[in-house]
């Protein structure tokens, strides 16, 4: 846990004092990622660097896991805080192994132990130790160096990590890959992380909480969903962007908006299908499943109205399915691709568990705007009546 209490930094410059961080108060719960977000020069880096005292605070205090770090020896403090800088900063005179082992060495680990650790960490960041351990930083691509930078910060297994635009120097495609890998790692490692970014999309993707800075002040500190749904003022609203509702799509999983769905079997008559379509108010079609309750196609309303026979002889194929863990951005994209207003959801075995509709999505995203209503309303998490 990181707790910041009235942290302030005033730089004395030839043009007079500059307040880079102004009485910042915030708390990052254990195991969470907090992203400091804001335009350039708003004090994100200054705030971050006061935590490991690369920049000494003018006033205020920092607590790590409840301990006031003010009196601690800075060198020891830093060995217990993982630090990843934007410029990566691998030591060019050291091999990758030596770079990763640098903190363990400073801590006096014996060589077998830190060598094993370097190997383990390279594997963790998806680099082959047999290829990379003995190489020098300049023999690595930017993305590979960035991974090593993360490995180095993790070496002594610090409970707290500080990351200053760690993926800023990487091209957009690799950045997405590294972000995903990092999030996967974090699910296991559960570090308490403070992460600086100027990119709202990155923040929404990485953060458990986002802290928006402006001119050295913390203006809003909220979960990504709350931030996007309820920006506190015009500044935050313009910073998160006009498409903030769409950005929220990525934060919501299908399971949160899933609804029950009626189905027919191949052996049902088209008459039954029509009756169910009417009963449930479906406008165009009804889903058909096999004996294992796996969706295999649709029976359309027009066919059911005009034809006699069994569903199994008059259906058309499945377009796409989603899974409960998909995010709504993917679902929306599938819906646009397939020109459809709803999609079936299946579990890993392909068994139908419900459906997700455009209306359900809109409703979910809209619901939070009526804050009071939100709490009263039950979440859209219905079990399917199998």
């Amino acid at each position, binding site marked *: 846990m990181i707790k910041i209490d009235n942290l302030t930094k005033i730089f004395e410059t030839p043009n007079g004092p500059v307040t880079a961080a102004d009485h910042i108060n915030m708390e990052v719960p254990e195991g969470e990622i907090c992203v400091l977000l804001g335009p350039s020069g708003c004090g994100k880096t200054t705030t971050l660097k006061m935590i490991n005292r*690369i920049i000494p605070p003018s006033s205020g205090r920092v607590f790590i896991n409840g301990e006031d770090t003010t009196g601690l020896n800075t060198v020891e403090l*830093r060995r217990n805080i993982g630090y990843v800088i934007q*410029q*990566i900063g*691998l*030591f*060019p005179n050291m091999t990758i192994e030596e770079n990763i082992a640098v903190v363990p060495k400073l801590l006096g680990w014996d060589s077998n132990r830190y060598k094993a650790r370097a190997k383990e960490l390279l594997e963790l960041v998806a680099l082959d130790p047999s290829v990379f351990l003995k190489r020098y930083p*300049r023999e690595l691509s930017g993305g590979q160096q960035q991974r090593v930078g993360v490995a180095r910060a993790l070496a002594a297994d610090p409970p707290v990590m500080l990351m200053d635009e760690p993926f800023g120097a990487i091209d957009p495609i690799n950045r997405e890959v590294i972000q995903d890998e990092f999030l996967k790692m974090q699910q296991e490692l559960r570090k308490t992380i403070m992460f600086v970014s100027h990119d709202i999309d990155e923040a929404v993707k990485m953060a458990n909480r986002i802290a928006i800075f402006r001119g050295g002040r913390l203006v809003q500190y909220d979960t990504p969903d709350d931030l996007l749904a309820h920006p506190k003022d015009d500044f935050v609203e313009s910073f998160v962007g006009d498409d903030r509702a769409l950005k929220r799509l990525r934060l919501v999983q299908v399971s949160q908006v899933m609804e029950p769905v009626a189905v027919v079997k191949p052996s049902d008559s088209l008459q039954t299908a029509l009756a169910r379509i009417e009963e449930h108010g479906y406008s165009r079609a009804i889903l058909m499943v096999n004996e294992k309750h796996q969706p295999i196609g649709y029976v359309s309303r027009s066919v059911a109205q005009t034809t006699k026979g069994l569903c199994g002889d008059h259906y058309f194929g499945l377009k796409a399915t989603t899974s409960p863990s998909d995010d709504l951005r993917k679902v929306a994209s599938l819906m646009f691709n397939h020109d459809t207003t709803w999609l079936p959801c299946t579990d890993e075995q392909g068994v139908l568990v419900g459906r997700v509709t455009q209306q359900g999505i809109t409703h979910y995203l809209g619901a939070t705007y009526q804050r009071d209503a939100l709490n009263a309303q039950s979440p859209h998490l219905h079990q399917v009546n199998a």
Partner: protein
Amino acid sequence: MELLDFLNDNLDLILQLTAEHISLVAVAVGLATVTGVPIGIAITQNERAARIVLYVASIIITIPSIALFGLMIPLLSTIGQGIGYLPAVIAVLLYSQLPIIRNTYTAINNVNPALREAARGVGMSPLQRLRMVEVPLAIPVIMAGVRTAVVMNIGVMAIAAYIGAGGLGVLISRGISQSDPRQLIAGAIAVSILAVIADYALLWLQRRLTPKGVSA
């Protein structure tokens, strides 16, 4: 022809003077490195001190060597060392300070600030930072300073023969006083060749000392 005969007849002497010359320069520049590198590192901590030290070192290097020897004679005479080995070594030691201090200072100051921050961030103490990061990265430039000092002072040391320090300058000074072009030319050529060889030898050493991941 005459020159070759002379070389042939005096090979032992020439080799002995060369050895003397090398040892004089090596001792002087060695001492200069041992003092200049720490001074160069120390002054990175204080810009004002750096300006003063570099200024003084630049002044020293502009003093003609003959004048410097002249200045030292009365001073060192008080301990009975007015001429000979000691003033020669001190002169070269002083002349070597500028290239060595300046290169060290520049090299340490030019270490990428991101690396310095990374070194602080992982929890290195200032001394660990120097030893593990800054000095290894500065080595190519520091060594270039040492090379400059050696090559420059092989020439300076030739003049130290006038104060009885020995070395290849002996051939030159005798050549002049005895109007013997053979000795003069032999001495001059030997000094030049020594300078070229020393330069290459030190370049080789510089490459050896440069950490593998760092481009020289």
